[in-house]
């Protein structure tokens, strides 16, 4: 029960309207776990998330319904560098300004802004264009997920205001599917089922 409380508290991040208590479910079947993972994959492979979960070329992507049929590298020849914050060339924060007190900019296609330094996800978490099993095995591998168990992943979801933006991306952009709360609950279901991945034998 201690775990519940911790997660609940940490999920009380600014992006959440109100504190949400999460319960780690018991008696989750493999099927329920895999179903939860499928929903998680819908989120992790969604452009709002995967565009910044790119590989070692450090080039964020522009894709999703507002960009037409085909994905393209982030315009303006943007490269976030090995720093993943653009320090080598143009800082991500040159355009993705820090925004905490002022209300969100509602101009369509304005640069996404949150109360954090905009950055790419770590290179280990390369999701863009990856299949379900590839993302799944990365997420359950502590060597490649920041040393996290599934509860820690759920806690991380509550912390990270950049990922909260995925569900509130402003006009002209399609939000990530489900909600942050549902996504967090799915991570807990998936974890309770033993973090199964498609094709596990």
């Amino acid at each position, binding site marked *: 029960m201690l775990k519940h409380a911790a997660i609940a508290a940490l999920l009380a991040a600014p992006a959440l309207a109100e504190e949400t208590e999460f319960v780690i479910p018991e008696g989750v079947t493999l099927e329920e776990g895999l179903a939860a993972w499928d929903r998680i994959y819908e989120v992790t492979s969604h452009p709002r998330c995967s565009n910044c979960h790119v590989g070692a070329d450090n080039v964020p992507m522009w894709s999703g319904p507002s960009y037409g049929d085909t994905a393209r590298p982030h315009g*303006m020849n*943007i490269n976030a560098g090995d720093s993943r914050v653009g320090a080598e060339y143009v*800082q991500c924060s040159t355009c*993705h*300004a820090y*925004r905490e007190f002022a209300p969100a900019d509602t101009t369509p296609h304005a640069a996404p802004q949150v109360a954090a330094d905009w950055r790419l996800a770590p290179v280990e978490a390369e999701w863009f264009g990856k299949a379900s099993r590839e993302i799944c095995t990365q997420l359950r591998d502590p060597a490649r997920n920041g040393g996290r168990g599934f509860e820690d992943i759920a806690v991380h979801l509550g912390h990270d205001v950049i990922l909260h933006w995925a569900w509130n991306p402003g006009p002209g952009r399609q939000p990530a599917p489900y909600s942050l709360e549902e996504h967090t609950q799915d991570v807990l279901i998936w974890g309770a089922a033993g973090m199964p991945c498609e094709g596990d034998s």
Partner: protein
Amino acid sequence: MKLTVNDTEHEVDVDPAMPLLWVLRDELGITGPKYGCGIAQCGACTVHIDGQAVRSCQVAIGDLVGDVTTIEGLGTPDLRHAVQEAWIEGQVAQCGYCQSGQIMQAASLLETNPAPTDDDIDRAMSGNLCRCGTYPRIRAAIHSAAAKLQEG
């Protein structure tokens, strides 16, 4: 709200959501930074905040932290920054509307990378749109400014 622009402190009473660009232009009368797109697509509004190039149309005044330098603070017609000098010698501008932003971005690039390659310039400068197409001269002027700065 207080802000420091080109070493001068100002106080403004505006909606905290107002972008820095419009505080500079309409409230303080500092018009070197230009409005081009309003969504960080063109770079014409580029200023420095604590030395870093930033699109001033994207910074809400309520979230501004740091000292602002505009092109007017970089150098003046009589006392020019090396980048401005290179821009004049290289006869870069056509309409000139984007050039304040180009110069501020270039000055920031040379702060962190004193001898940029063509590839470095392509990466640092491609967020600054020039509708007249002065890019070949911008590239040459950056190389020339880099050489100037290295000579001291």
